């Protein structure tokens, strides 16, 4: 009995090995199964998912106007202190003082892409961009000002 078991073990072992080798051999000969993406080479054709959270940006229209009212909802929503809203007071044509943003400072190095600021924004002034190549040589470059210089708030956004 021992001998029969012994021979059985040898054969089942060899069989299981061959089954595994058949599968790896299949992949060795079938190069169509390869799914590698050659990243820096396919940069032109690479399309990120449209909801991909790469960094926070503030879209401006062609008249260099944005939708940010400076309400600091994003600043409050942020868990890491990534966003800092610096406000100023504009003089409207009627001569009234109106609160507006001077700078919206965004620390990319602190951001965890949690999307809470985007959800919190009441006027849809900021959104997530799909860029992802954020490496820079100097850490200071990661601190960004989101509103363009000289930009104004869009008409009709309160």
């Amino acid at each position, binding site marked *: 009995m021992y001998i029969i078991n012994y021979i059985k073990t040898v054969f089942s072992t060899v069989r*299981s090995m061959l089954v*595994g080798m058949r599968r790896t051999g299949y992949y060795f000969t079938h190069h169509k199964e390869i*799914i590698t993406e050659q990243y820096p080479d396919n940069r032109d054709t690479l399309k990120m998912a449209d909801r991909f959270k790469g960094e926070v940006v503030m879209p401006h229209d062609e008249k260099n106007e944005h939708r940010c009212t400076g309400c600091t909802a994003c600043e409050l929503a942020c868990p890491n202190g990534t966003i800092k809203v610096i406000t100023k007071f504009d003089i409207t044509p009627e001569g009234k003082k109106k609160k507006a943003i001077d700078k919206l400072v965004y620390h990319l190095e602190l951001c965890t892409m*949690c999307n809470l600021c985007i959800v919190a924004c009441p006027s849809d002034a900021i959104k997530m961009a799909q860029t992802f190549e954020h490496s820079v040589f100097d850490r200071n470059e990661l601190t960004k000002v989101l509103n363009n210089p000289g930009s104004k708030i869009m008409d009709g956004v309160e």
Partner: protein
Amino acid sequence: MYRTTEIISDGTKNPPLEGGEAGDFIINVGPQHPATHGVLHLVITLNGETIKKVEPHLGYIHRSIEKMCESLTYRQFIYVTSRMDYLSSHINNHACAMCVEKGMQIEVPARARVIRILMDELTRIASHELWLGAMAMDLGAFTPFFHTFREREMINEIMEDTCGARLTMNYMVPGGVMQDIHPDFQRKVKDFVKQFQRKIGEMDEIVTGNTIFQNRMKGVGIITREDAISFGCTGPVSRGSGVSSDTRKLFPYEGYENIEFDEVIETGCDSFARYMIRIREMQQSIRIIEQLIDNIPEGDFQAKTKAVLKLPKGDFFQRVETARGQFGVYIVSEGGTTPYRIKFRSPGFSNLSILDHIARGSKIGDLVAMMGTLDLVIPDIDR
């Protein structure tokens, strides 16, 4: 052997550990070691190849998330929990969201609940796929790692489409989910299910059926039923010892009670039983996904909630079943906008504590197999 003994017995250079004897062969596995998948530090006392004692040293990646959460609001603290068990980040977020909902008594819309379950199960599959590859790599077979990553990549793409991130999604918010599912979601999930069912058989050929694999895992790391319960093991680790511990069945949440699936239980108590549990659990997850993917109810994906969440005074506990076991969130509230104290009951922490118990008397190679089937994720242990 004189060098090794000399250094160990020399108290100034390398003091013997408590309970150690001069002449013990002590090896540091970790904090940087290929088998620990992170910064786990195990001090192993050896007698030849046989392990006499395993002593885990933790804290290399401890970020004190519990303390951090004390200064974050109930909306903000959820994203931090993705960084604990990063392989089942959805499920961690889910637990936190549910705990806040329990305190606030928010009714979650049916659509959001189904989306949450779908995401949970996809995460579970992704986590088990990674575990399968990593465990095969621990045992010395490099190929399955890449094969399992092919399927995991499909899940990651689904996550990327809907949640905007691949690993730390922060998709669950109190009251529902952050965004509605992507229009392609259902099609892609069905593609994935098809691909998964076509390819899971290959793992049987390369891994499960292989005699070397079976010999490496069978009879290794025996956890008896009593030990599994006493050491607080949950998830596949305890179910491999015949304990019915699936939180989805014991304390159903989020509508799991209405879904047909089997709790996978094996009675082998060894590494191979734990291995089979995870393989079969993936198939159960596929079963859940197949039931739900065509039946996502219409409606809101998020309940209307107040801008500022304030939990009433009291303590709230919510547990879920992650890929690694029972994950619990315990919030103590004083009525403010931030929690007074948060405790995360992480499955990896309890599962790790049994390692010393089961590793004694086995070989170094066995230790790797045991750590593989305990499925330790170090940030989950350290928090």
